[in-house]
C-alpha cells in the first residue's frame, strides 16, 4: 500500500513538471554570466542580420510575407503557451520553427524564432532578456539549421517523407538541447575535467526530459505535416 502511494505521488510530481519542460530548455534571466550573455548576443547578431535581409527581400517581392511572418510567430508562441497537460509546452520549436523553416528557409526563421523567444520572456517569464542571445542561438538558429539540413539530406537520400520529417524535427530538437548544454558548460566548467565534464553533466540531466520529448515531437510533426500535405 505504501509503495503504491509513492508511485502515485511520483507520478503526480512528474506530471507537475511536464508543462514546465519548456522553461527547462530556456536559459533563465540572470543565469548566464554577463560576459557569456554578451558573447552569445554577438554570435547571434550576424545571423539575425542575415535573416532580416532575406526577409526584407522577400517582402519586397510579396508584401503578404510580412503578415505571414508575424502570424507564424504568433502560431509558434501559442503552441508553446498552451497549457495542455502534457509535453506540448516545448513543441513550439521543432514544430512551429520546423514548419516555418521548410516554408521560409532557416534564416528568416531565425528572426521569427527570436521574436517568439522575446515574447516568451516578456509574457510567459520563460527565458530572459540578457539570455535571449544565447537562447536564440540554440533554438532559433542551430535547431532550425539542423532540422533544415537533415530534412534536405534525408529527402535527397530518397527516404520517405515521414521519416525525413521525423528525423528533422527530432534531431533539430536534440541539437537545440545539446547546444544549450554546451552554452551552460562553457559558462560553468567543472573544477575537475573542465568543459567536457560539465557538458556531460548538463547534457545528462537534460537528456532525461529531452530525448522522450524529441521523439514525441518528431511523431507530432509527422502527423501535422502529413495532414498539411493533403490540403
Amino acid at each position: 500500500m505504501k509503495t503504491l502511494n509513492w508511485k502515485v505521488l511520483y507520478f503526480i510530481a512528474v506530471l507537475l513538471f511536464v508543462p514546465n519542460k519548456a522553461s527547462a530548455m530556456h536559459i533563465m534571466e540572470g543565469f548566464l554570466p554577463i560576459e557569456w550573455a554578451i558573447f552569445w548576443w554577438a554570435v547571434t547578431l550576424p545571423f539575425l542580420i542575415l535573416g532580416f535581409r532575406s526577409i526584407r527581400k522577400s517582402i519586397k517581392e510579396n508584401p503578404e510575407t510580412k503578415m505571414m511572418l508575424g502570424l507564424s510567430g504568433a502560431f509558434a508562441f501559442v503552441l508553446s503557451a498552451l497549457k495542455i497537460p502534457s509535453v506540448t509546452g516545448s513543441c513550439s520549436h521543432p514544430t512551429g520553427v520546423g514548419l516555418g523553416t521548410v516554408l521560409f528557409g532557416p534564416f528568416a526563421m531565425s528572426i521569427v524564432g527570436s521574436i517568439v523567444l522575446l515574447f516568451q520572456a516578456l509574457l510567459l517569464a520563460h527565458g530572459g532578456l540578457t539570455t535571449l542571445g544565447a537562447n536564440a542561438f540554440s533554438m532559433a538558429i542551430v535547431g532550425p539549421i539542423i532540422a533544415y539540413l537533415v530534412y534536405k539530406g534525408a529527402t535527397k537520400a530518397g527516404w520517405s517523407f515521414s521519416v525525413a520529417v521525423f528525423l528533422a524535427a527530432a534531431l533539430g530538437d536534440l541539437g537545440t538541447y545539446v547546444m544549450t548544454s554546451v552554452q551552460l558548460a562553457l559558462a560553468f566548467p567543472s573544477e575537475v575535467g573542465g568543459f567536457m565534464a560539465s557538458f556531460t553533466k548538463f547534457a545528462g540531466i537534460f537528456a532525461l526530459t529531452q530525448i522522450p520529448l524529441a521523439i514525441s515531437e518528431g511523431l507530432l510533426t509527422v502527423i501535422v505535416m502529413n495532414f498539411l500535405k493533403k490540403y
Partner: protein
Amino acid sequence: MLLIDKYAYFNRLKHIHPVEKMTFALFLLLFALTVKDTIVSLITFAVMSAFIILGAKIPLRYYIKLLLLPGFFLLSGILTIVISFASIKTTTPHVLWSVEFGYWKLFITENNIKIATKLILVVLSSISCLYFLTLTTPVNAILQVLRKLKVPQLLIEIIEITYRFIFVFLETALHIYQAQNSRLGYMTMKKWLHSLGLLISSLFINVFKRAKELTIAMDSRGYTEDIMYIDDNYQYSAVNWIIITIIIASIVAVYLLFGGTL
C-alpha cells in the same frame, strides 16, 4: 489569458513613462549581473519586489508564483553545478561531501557551493528586474520606445503583428482544444497525439487564412508600405527621474562601500 500581459495594462504604474521604467529595470539588471555582488543582489531584489508589490500593486501570491516559475530550471541547473564527478584517482580540493561508485566519485566542493549561492542570488535579483519591467510595462509601450531607438521599422512591425495575433490564436487554440475535449479527444496517449496533431494543423491553416484577410483589410485602409499610427502619450516626470537616480546611486554607493570596484 496571459496574466503578465493583463497586469502590464492594469497596474498602478501603467502611466509612468516606459523610458523611465525601462532605464530603471535594465540598469539594475545589468548592474547586478555585472558586479555579481551578494549585497547588491539582495538590495536589488528587495527594491524591485517592493516596487512590484507596493508600487504596482501586483498581488503577492501571483508574484511568488512567478518567482517559482523557473524553479525547475534553476534547481536542475544548480544541482548540476554543485555536484561534480571525476575518476576516483583525481584529487579534489576542499571536498565537503563525496560518494564513490566503482571508478567514479561524485562530490561537492566548497567552491561550487559558493558559486551556486551567488548564482541563486544574482538570478533572483535579475528576474525581479525582468518581472518589474514586464508586469508594469505593456508590450506596446516597450515597442514605442524601441521605435524611438531606431530599431528597424520592419522588425517592429513583425513583432507587433505577432503580438496581436498571439491573442487571436490563443483563443482559437483554446476553443479547438475545448471542442476536442468535449468530443473525448486527449483521453489516451494515442488519441492525445492525434488530437494535438489536428489542433496544430488547423491552427496552421488559420495562419494562412488570417494573413490573407489581414492583408486585404489593411489594403482597404490605404496601407502602402509602413505601418504607422499615432503614439501613445506618456509624460516624463522629474520626480521619477530623481527617485530612479537616487536608488541607482545608493545601490552603486553600497557596492563601493562594501569593497566592490567598478
